[in-house]
């Protein structure tokens, strides 16, 4: 692990450092027999926007026991639901073992390849857009609607069509159809 820590610490850009950390952490979780962690929330936006959006912590869904053992071994301390490592300057918010959005959202998870043998699982753009629309409507975050629009644009750059039917269904379930209409305008 020391070699990996050195690698992470050598990365000056905190956005890239967080991505590298998640990739190495995911590999370790899988090596120990756990389900790969899924990146959600702000860190997922940071990844898809390749650092245009920056976050303070890494929101993950991951199996609890194996996550706990890896993070403890790697010198992380826990406060509430947040794990942190001062040297790495990395804060991890553990948000549960699986996606609250359900089975369909799990099927839509995207695999990002960051290097040979290093991958990151991320919530789909559609589900992440709904997360941002929730933040815009219910938490009053003034930037989130714009980030939902950016995610829509990012999806287009890699040639994927947004699944409008799914997006509208999720928006109805979450009570954010009004904000979805604004994002699609």
């Amino acid at each position, binding site marked *: 692990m020391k070699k990996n820590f050195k*690698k992470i610490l050598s990365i000056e850009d905190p*956005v*890239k450092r967080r*991505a*590298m950390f998640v990739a190495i952490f995911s590999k370790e979780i899988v090596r120990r027999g756990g389900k790969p962690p899924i990146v959600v*929330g*702000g860190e997922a936006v940071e*990844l*898809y*926007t*390749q*650092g*245009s*959006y920056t*976050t*303070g*912590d890494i*929101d993950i869904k991951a199996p609890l026991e194996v996550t706990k053992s890896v993070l403890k071994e790697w010198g992380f301390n826990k*406060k509430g639901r*947040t794990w*942190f490592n*001062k040297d790495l*300057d990395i*804060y991890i*918010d553990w948000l549960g073992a699986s996606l609250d959005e359900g089975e369909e959202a799990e099927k839509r998870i*995207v*695999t*990002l*390849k*960051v*290097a*040979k043998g*290093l*991958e990151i699982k991320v919530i789909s753009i559609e589900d992440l857009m709904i997360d941002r629309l929730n*933040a815009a409507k219910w*938490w*009053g*975050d*003034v*930037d989130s609607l*714009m*980030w939902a*629009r*950016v995610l829509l*644009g*990012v999806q287009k*750059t*890699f*040639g994927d069509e947004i699944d409008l039917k799914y997006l509208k269904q999720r928006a109805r379930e979450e009570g954010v159809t009004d904000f979805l209409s604004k994002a699609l305008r």
Partner: protein
Amino acid sequence: MKKIFTYDQLKEIAKETKAELFDKGGFNPGLMKTRKKPRTSEEIDILYERAMERAKRYKPYYDENNKLVLPYFVFLIH
């Protein structure tokens, strides 16, 4: 006499301070994500354009195994 800090020193101080505040409950990285201060439509447009420019500069693509590659995060590991 003014004390001059190097970038690395400032980085270290910031890291230490953040960890200390977090430990005392005065800093929650999760809460930093909600912005309440309104932005003008011009500011929003600039942020949007900047993000889209970046997406074009580092154009994502799928590899042969249908895995998404985001060029900004491609690390060369030997």
